[in-house]
């Protein structure tokens, strides 16, 4: 309800009532009372005030570009470091995953086994459903390969008989290759078969690497937390200085009736801008860095007949990093503002 609604003004000659903003009467004594503003207008002006605060805070950052850039860079580095580590680790994880996919099991055949037993073993293994491919390498073929590849020909020629056993190279199903538990059962099953001397699943180093990567992942999270705390402190300190610099202004604003919330707002926006820019810059840094590395990595991967390529943080990363940066900036500013603004009283 507008308390200043005029007593219904007579319809004028044109038959139209006056539309437009109802202003308080110009009576001087009533004019001295202020603050009679409609609810809608309050909401409007609240949004307006936020918009102008956001704009002004941004303009203030541009007014001192070097100083602002330093702060933004510190934030960006603090965010980029754990992110880069994370990206590196998740790439390694992907890489090790693709190695695991090509997991192979070597089934060494007892050298004393009769040819009939060997043939039976090959048939049994070939009929196992969990296996994708089975390749038999006879002792003779193994010897030939060995002589050709290793250059041990002369040494091997000295031996009376072939020391090499027959080998069955077994590739498990791809579903199976990431499941270490089921793989070990398969290994156990295979070693039970008659004529098998030894079964080797060379995955231990992969498992170790998995563990190391998991540890690295945790380190990056820990680093992230620590550096986030750093960002909070950096933003907090920057805002504290900004508050000190604008002390006079705060005093005047409070004297003319500015609430703490009103005084706080521009500083909160400043923190938000710092954080957002820091997050954006961190993303740019990590993305550019991984792009730069990628050409080298793909080249290296090509040498190993791999099509592996470095994955950056992507658009989701951009969202997460700027969001995180903005949040940290806002939080840091809130910490500083909460402590210092209430203390500045005229």
């Amino acid at each position, binding site marked *: 309800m507008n308390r200043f609604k005029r007593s219904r003004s007579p319809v004028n000659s044109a038959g139209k009532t006056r539309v437009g903003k109802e202003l308080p009467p110009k009576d*001087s*004594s009533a*004019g*001295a*009372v*202020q*603050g009679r*503003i409609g609810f809608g*207008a*309050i909401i*409007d*002006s*609240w949004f*307006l*005030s936020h918009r102008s605060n956001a704009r002004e805070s941004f303009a203030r950052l541009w007014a001192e570009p070097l100083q602002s850039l330093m702060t933004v860079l510190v934030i960006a580095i603090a965010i980029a470091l754990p992110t880069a580590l994370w990206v590196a680790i998740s790439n390694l994880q992907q890489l090790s995953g693709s190695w695991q996919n090509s997991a192979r099991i070597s089934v060494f055949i007892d050298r004393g086994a009769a040819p009939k037993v060997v043939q039976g073993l090959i048939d049994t293994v070939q009929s196992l459903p969990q296996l994708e491919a089975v390749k038999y390498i006879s002792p003779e073929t193994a010897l030939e390969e060995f002589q050709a590849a290793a250059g041990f020909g002369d040494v091997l020629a000295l031996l009376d008989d072939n020391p090499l056993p027959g080998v069955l190279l077994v590739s498990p199903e791809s579903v199976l290759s990431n499941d270490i538990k089921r793989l070990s059962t398969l290994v156990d099953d295979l070693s039970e078969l008659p004529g098998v001397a030894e079964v080797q699943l060379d995955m231990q180093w992969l498992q170790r690497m998995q563990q190391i990567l998991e540890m690295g992942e945790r380190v990056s999270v820990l680093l992230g937390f620590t550096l986030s705390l750093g960002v909070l402190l950096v933003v907090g300190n920057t805002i504290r200085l900004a508050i000190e610099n604008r002390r*006079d*202004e705060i*005093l*005047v*604003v*409070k*004297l*003319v*009736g*500015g*609430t*703490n919330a*009103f005084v706080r707002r521009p500083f909160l926006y400043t923190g938000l801008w710092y954080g957002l820019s820091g997050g954006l810059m961190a993303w740019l840094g990590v993305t550019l860095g991984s792009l730069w590395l990628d050409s080298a990595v793909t080249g290296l991967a090509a040498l190993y007949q791999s099509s592996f390529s470095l994955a950056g943080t992507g658009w989701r990363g951009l969202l997460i990093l700027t969001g995180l940066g903005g949040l940290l900036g806002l939080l840091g500013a809130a910490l500083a503002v909460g402590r210092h603004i209430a203390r500045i*009283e*005229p």
Partner: protein
Amino acid sequence: MIEFDGVSKRYEEGFEALSGINLAMAAGEMAFLTGHSGAGKSTLLKLIMLMERPSRGQLLINGKNLNRLHRSQIPYYRRRIGVVFQHHQLLFDRSVFDNVALPLQVSGYQSQEIGRRVRASLDKVGLLDKEKLNPLQLSGGEQQRVGIARAVVHKPRILLADEPTGNLDPELSSEIMRLFRDFRDVGVTVLIATHDIDLVERMGERVVNLNHGQLTAGLE
């Protein structure tokens, strides 16, 4: 409008700035607050502005006891008072217009309304053509008038001034005082702290004199 009822103010260091002040001002009254420096003039104004709280006694503004006003209400209370400072307290990082607009901005006025009121206020003090300048480009008298425009832009019911003519020549001072009288004429309660006795005598308004924190009648 303003009523001091046995108000004393003792600072933490033990210095008693005001003791047992009884003072009443009706709405639309104008008075000069005089006294030697350190007599408690500023303290008295600070009490009205709620920059300080009384140690004893109570202060009623428009019938409301300020002792019962919660901290969080102070900003809203201050919006009904206009203050002119001795050192005008203008902000030099913004234009004259934005300085005057400040009380309206903190109260959440819309920009159209702000523009209208700021120009009306600047017009009143005769500085309408300087709204885009920085206060630093103005003379001392002009700066003080900007301060007055800011103090009255939100049409307060009470106008306080602390040595508003502090470093102005007599002619400028009278000009400023005439402005204050104009506001009194439209119903604003005006209280001006000053040590410019000549000026006070020339104006022929009510005089409240403070001496070592106590009220004495009339001029010494």
